[in-house]
């Protein structure tokens, strides 16, 4: 099976190691991974803030880059939702829309993987559900099941499905509200060693606020934890 990795702009710049872990993970499952070099940004920042021509331009670019891909896999729920749910509103024939998957969703729903390994034995994690993965892709169980099957305990968190306050440009247009939303997440966080999420924007938001407040918990991308689940290497 052949898969194109769409690393996304945040993934390329801020979560390069996690994206590399996604490549290792997919290869370990006998998936042939390619990385079309002309990929850039999916256009979500422009779409969300109402700049439609710009969003359409970036969507058209991305659709062309992945035109020949059998599957496009993204280590990001919100960018995957942009391709699947929003591209049909921007482009005439967005075949890329129905071939795009968030990483955990791809593993569970397409590869039909139920367990990756036992590399997370004894780990206590909290899982932050990104809003677009949850409500647009309806990815809820897949990442949690994969983490649990590798031995992790996903500790119940009353705010695990609440927005972290990132929201793209919202985070800088209403920064005080955005930060208060992150505080709500942090204030309700149970006793865990790591917080995991499939979304880079959410991780930057939560980690940035946690570091400012001196909360010493790591916030890590799902792809890295899934690779640890498989490889046993932290």
């Amino acid at each position, binding site marked *: 099976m052949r898969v194109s990795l769409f690393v996304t702009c945040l993934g390329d710049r801020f979560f390069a190691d996690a994206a590399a872990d996604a490549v290792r993970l997919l290869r370990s499952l006998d998936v042939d991974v390619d990385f079309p070099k002309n990929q850039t940004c999916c256009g979500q920042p422009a779409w969300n803030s109402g700049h*439609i021509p710009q969003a359409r331009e970036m969507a058209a670019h991305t659709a062309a880059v992945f035109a020949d891909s059998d599957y496009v896999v993204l280590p990001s729920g919100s960018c995957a939702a942009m391709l699947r749910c929003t591209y049909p509103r921007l482009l005439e024939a967005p075949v890329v829309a129905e071939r795009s998957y968030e990483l955990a969703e791809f593993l569970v729903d397409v590869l039909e993987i139920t367990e990756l390994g036992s590399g997370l034995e004894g780990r206590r994690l909290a899982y932050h559900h990104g809003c677009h993965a949850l*409500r647009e892709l309806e990815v809820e169980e897949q990442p949690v099941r994969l983490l649990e099957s590798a031995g992790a305990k996903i500790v119940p968190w009353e705010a695990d499905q609440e927005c972290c306050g*990132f929201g793209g440009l*919202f985070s800088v*247009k209403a920064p005080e509200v955005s930060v208060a939303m992150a505080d709500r997440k942090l204030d309700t966080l149970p006793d865990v060693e790591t917080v995991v999420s499939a979304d880079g924007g959410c991780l930057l938001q939560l980690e940035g606020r946690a570091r400012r407040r001196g909360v010493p918990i790591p916030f890590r991308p799902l792809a890295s934890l899934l690779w640890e689940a498989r490889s046993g290497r932290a």
Partner: protein
Amino acid sequence: MDVHSRDYRARARQIIEETPEVREAVNAATQTFVDNRQNAFADLDGTALSRWAERVKSHALTHLADYLEEAEARLIERGAHVHWAETASDVHQIFERIVREQGVKKAVKAKSMLSEEIGLNPFLESCGVEVFETDLGEYIIQLLGEPPSHIVGPSIHKSLDDTRVIFHERLGTPRDASPERLAEAARDLLREAFLTADLGISGGNFLVAETGSIALIENEGNIRLSTSVPRIHIALVGIEKVLPKWADLPTFLQVTAKSATGQPVGCFVSMIQGPGGLPGGEPDGPEELHVVLVDNGRSRLLADPEVWEALRCVRCGACLNICPVYRQTGGHAYGYVYSGPIGGILGPGLVGLEETLPLPFASSACGACADVCPVRIPIPDLLHVWRQRAVERGLTSDVERSVLGLLTSTATRPRLFGWAEKAAGLLPAPVLRHLPMLREWSAGREPPRLEGPTFRELWDEGIE
């Protein structure tokens, strides 16, 4: 009511930083509403109910003139006076005439968001009428001189102790009075007002075209008293509140109460279809019933094919309760009578986009509101339409336009993009902190770590 939405960010900041107890009170109350709502729908097919409710409201709105005229005819048959008001000032004139002709000195008022929308209380006071809000929450904020902070719970932002203080100052209750003692003090005072008022004012949750019935949902009995004891009753009803059939009403009463507070149905539901004492009509009730059908921007919104669905709103407040943005500040930050997600689509629709900016942007687009709306208003999509229009009309910031323009031109030139991702890592942190947007980011958060290679570089080196 005046609109102060432009100050959204400043007001939100002020509330969060200077009155943390507001955030605490709003969070606790909305969480209770959210939990109760979830329990109320636990054994029901909520999706089927909301699909049905959506269809009934959409049908009523797309045949609005017919149903309104049917309701008017039924009301007139039963002896009510029906008035049509296009604007807030039309409503004011109607009230002024009735108040003057009838020599009204004192009015008791049931909770009505429409009356807030049209600024009724200050107007009546300018006509020399003493106005008593009779919903306990409304009464508290009336004493405080504040507008409602929530569609259903107007004083949601206040703690019990806030109420103790204002009641102590204004009604002379003990500083540490129990909630029961406070309610008793309000009841004594308001009972007197009910018995001596010339005029009762209410809104209307629904107006049934088939029977000309105004349905009102409440928990305190104050609406029943306001609409039946004084000799005149004026009901303010937004034209979008019409339902076609009597048989539609029971389900709407339940869906609204469950969505609002998680109750199976309101403690009291009043059905009003005419004044009292007429042959063949209601034995009890006011001598005169006036129904004011208010447009105030609704027809214009209805005629806008991209955003009209906002008019299905039944004012349950479920979207406010679930909204993580609303929950940080309560309603006052929004500077408009309707706050939260629904305010971001009703404001531009009823008042105008320029007047209510940045309300459509006061959302992280998380989509939680769409999950709970009992009439399936696609709130995130409608917020997005208003965002697009704001951009098209040049109402958004130059900085944002430049940044997104830069992103687009880089993102369609892959080599440049790869270089830019790499170069971003070379910028020294002090420079980054002062760039627009990053400055806002860094005020409350550490900036993202930029060091290390990009994924492109890792890929080129070969991933082992």
